[in-house]
């Protein structure tokens, strides 16, 4: 049931984005802000991609663990270590899945910080334009549009990160209660 809701929500979201992109590409020539918005969205998505899919996979796997389904440990061990050989050398496949998931969550931490730093710097410049600390008739709206575009993948990263954190902690609680 939940998976169906997830897929319906994802489809609706993708359709909305695609429709919005179509509408905006139709008016890019007249609106430099629209072009800036799309550039901000795509450019920040490029850096957010690893986080979005990483946190998404962590949440899905954690849910499988909570529901008691079988999970391939070796695949997750490969994500945690840099390579399959490293994963074997570290004997990661001997660990519990929930433990591996919390390690995988930790692996994504530096990428998350770098991403949020980039977004914060852009947001800062946009805020300066908005508060008239900096002012430019041409660059002000463009920077603001880039920030709004960047806010879309940032929202995804933020909510998926939150979801992954909750699911992993639930999986860990289940593991600990089983051990006790």
């Amino acid at each position, binding site marked *: 049931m939940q998976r169906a809701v997830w897929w319906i929500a994802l489809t609706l979201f993708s359709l909305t984005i695609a429709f919005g992109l179509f509408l905006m590409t139709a008016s890019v020539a007249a609106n430099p802000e629209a072009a800036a*918005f799309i550039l901000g969205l795509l450019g920040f998505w490029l850096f957010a991609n690893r986080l979005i899919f990483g946190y998404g996979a962590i949440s899905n796997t954690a849910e499988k663990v909570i529901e008691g389904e079988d999970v391939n440990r070796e695949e997750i061990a490969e994500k945690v270590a840099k390579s399959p050989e490293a994963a074997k050398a570290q004997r990661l496949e001997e660990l519990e899945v929930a433990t591996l998931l919390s390690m995988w969550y930790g692996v994504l931490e530096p990428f998350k910080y770098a991403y949020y730093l980039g977004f914060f710097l852009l947001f800062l410049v946009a805020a300066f334009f908005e508060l008239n600390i900096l002012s430019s008739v041409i660059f002000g709206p463009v920077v603001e549009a880039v920030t709004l575009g960047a806010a879309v993948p940032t929202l995804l990263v933020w*909510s998926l990160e939150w979801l992954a954190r909750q699911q992993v902690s639930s999986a860990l609680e289940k593991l600990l209660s089983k051990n006790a």
Partner: protein
Amino acid sequence: MKRASIVLVVSIFVALVLGWTIGSFFTGRNVEKVIASIPGSPIVVNAVYNKEHHSIVYSILNPGGTPLTIVNESFVFTPGKETKEKGYIVSHVPVHVNLPPGTITAVELKLKEGTEKLKLGDAVLATFTYVHPLSPDLYTVAHPFKMGVKAEKKEENKGGK
């Protein structure tokens, strides 16, 4: 599972706010562009006689989105009861005053040199001819000015009640 649904609800709420912000940003930019392409008609918000320069300083507001340019000034001087000066007309004095959009600009109208200082009741009907960038046409705005007329009007209103 309760925790996951909280994440979903909060995320949807934030996403709606974000979508609203994006939508209003683009709507606002479009409206700004439309307004910036509409020329306004200048409004004289205040006129003050400057005794030292023997001139009247008009504060003119350009309420539109395009810049306007005053290309010439004309005025008709009508004497009041207290002055000995005779009435005269000065027409088509070429000037070049830019009125930037959305701001009030001070425009000085020099009265004829060698004439007496304005006295109570003297009237000056000024006509400004201006152009805007969208067409080569000339437009005019005329403003009647009477020395000390503001105080008189207030008294009239009080008397009327």
